[in-house]
């Protein structure tokens, strides 16, 4: 009978490990009992039907606690939850690729007319097949030739079309949006009549952009005047990375706050 194989570890789990797993299991068990039994807790039946939402909350909590057990150390519960999540995610996305891409954009406008030919001839299916779509169908099949080692070179034609379009289309758009527009608002006259702060900010922005660009220009040695300006660029970059770090902390903490909110208000219903 197939069993879950765990990579061999040196030595048995320690007392601390066992204690941790026992505590975690009891937290889940007693917390769930509390969540159902207390006054504002979950109901087993809602409008006469079994409460699948409450079952779902229990499963979500189990998955959450199993994944958080990684913070103590890597363990089978974490690995099991992680792999289950990967599998469900894979299946979910495969289904979505069919319903949101292949079916409406390729099957319905083209392939359906061949598959349901008789219904089409009877007039039950309206419209005409879009034969232009034979081109992306052909390219898609070329892409799938990657699965046949002898023919995998055919997929290069599809990739070349995809990459060529992306490279070509990006050039004028990136120039317009990220180069010209950005330069336009950097090289502006200093607005002396708008007050000291506005004028100061304009100078700060100009200095910042030029010094950072010069810092990343490695074709000349950073000595003398170039060295001083690139040093200023470093200061600007440190402020930039510090601000980014601050925002990253905010972003990551928001994710944790949401999970804790789910455990307190969604699971325990406190």
């Amino acid at each position, binding site marked *: 009978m197939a069993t879950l194989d765990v990579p061999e570890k040196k030595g048995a789990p320690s007392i601390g490990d066992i204690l941790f797993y026992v505590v975690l299991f009891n937290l889940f068990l007693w917390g769930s009992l509390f969540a159902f039994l207390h*006054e*504002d807790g979950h109901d087993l039946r809602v409008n006469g039907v079994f409460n699948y939402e409450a079952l779902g909350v229990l499963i979500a909590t189990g998955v959450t606690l199993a994944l958080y057990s990684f*913070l*103590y150390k890597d363990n089978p519960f974490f690995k099991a939850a992680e792999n289950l999540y990967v599998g469900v*995610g894979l299946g*979910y*996305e495969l289904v*979505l*690729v069919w319903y*949101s*891409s292949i079916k*409406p*954009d390729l099957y*319905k*406008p083209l392939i359906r007319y061949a598959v349901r030919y008789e219904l089409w001839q009877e007039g039950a299916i309206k419209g005409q097949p879009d034969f232009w779509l034979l081109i992306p169908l052909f390219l898609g099949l070329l892409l799938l030739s990657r699965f046949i080692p002898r023919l995998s070179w055919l997929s290069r034609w599809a990739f070349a079309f995809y990459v060529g*379009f*992306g490279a070509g*289309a*990006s050039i004028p*758009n*990136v120039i*317009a*949006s*990220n180069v010209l*527009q*950005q330069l*336009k*608002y950097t090289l502006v006259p200093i607005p002396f009549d708008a007050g000291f702060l506005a004028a100061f900010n304009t100078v700060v*922005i100009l200095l910042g952009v030029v010094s950072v660009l010069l810092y990343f220009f490695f074709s000349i040695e950073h000595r003398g005047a170039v060295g001083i300006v690139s040093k200023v660029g470093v200061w600007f970059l440190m402020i*930039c990375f510090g*601000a*980014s770090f601050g*925002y*990253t*902390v*905010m*972003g990551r*903490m*928001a*994710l*944790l*706050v*949401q*999970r*804790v*909110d789910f455990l*307190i*208000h969604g699971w325990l219903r*406190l």
Partner: protein
Amino acid sequence: MRWLLDIDRRIIFLLVLVLIVLATVLQDRIEFPIVSSSPVDGVYDAIDGLPAGSPVLLSMDYDPASQAELEPMNRAVLRHLFRKDLRITGMTHWPRGLNFVEQVVQSTAREFDDLSVEVRTFDSKKAATDHLALVKTKPDEAAKVKAQLATVNIGRERAEAPIQYEPRLYTLLDEVEKGLAAEPFEQGGKHHVLTVVERKPTKEYGKDYCYLGVRLGAAILIINMGQSLFDAFPADKYGTPTRELAGQGKVLEGVSKLGDFKYLMVVAAGISAEQWIIYGSQKYGFPMGVGCTAVMAPDLYPYLNSKQITGILGGAKGAWEYEAKIRVPDKATSRVPAQTMAHVLVILLVIFCNVAYLMVGRSKPPGAR
């Protein structure tokens, strides 16, 4: 002193967890005044300035990993768009977000239903609480108690006498409908027990809003939409042809491509926002605003400065500021205490470790490296 620098990281994990759990449990008792910043005002003012009936595109490109930051701001923006009676077209680039984004659109539209509510008013809290218990155990008897009928539309911030609208009604009426209301509604010294008897939608799918679902392609999809919306999305998520949705009096009337929208609001994790700017707004010429995760927000300030976007809602902060602007404190606002605790903790950890580091450095014997 060196041991201070080598503390087991699991102790820090535990400290973080305990403080955030504490702040979450006490969140209802802590309130901070919220003042919006100019990037958030930029988005709010742009949407507020649109005339009623203007077609607006809302691209909601996020997944469960970024839902914590982006869903509250998505909901707040949707409330604002619905309140302004704009014609909303929703879509997403991310398959992983398809279902819950749809739920947000549908549930926010429901907030604008006209609710017929039976209001039973009591002078004391005990009498009201007793009646609330009677509603759960003997609903027929509870129904015999005299009531006044009031129409409430929480989305429009309207409520008829004997009650007045308050943001609390958002969650309270939701709990009432689910049979989960635990306390009566206290207002002006009176205690009201509310029962929702009828719900009449005022926002109609296909006329006031629609949801196109997801298509893959990222920048290519944006270019495709810019050329022809009907080619990019032949049908909405429910199979209705988009050409049908562009008929007279429908949500996409007068819209055949991206440039026909009066505003684009992107709520995005990842690089979707930048792709919308480069391949959408810049190329096809329409104003746009961005809601993004806190990690992405600093990258978008150059576009704000160059007026390629009207404003930025950055992370949880953007969400709670927008909730304050539209006067509906929701999930983001409730998480402010925990978020504040987390920020202060990280600042203190950085300060503490640097002080300890300096002290250890000073305690080394001369000549030591």
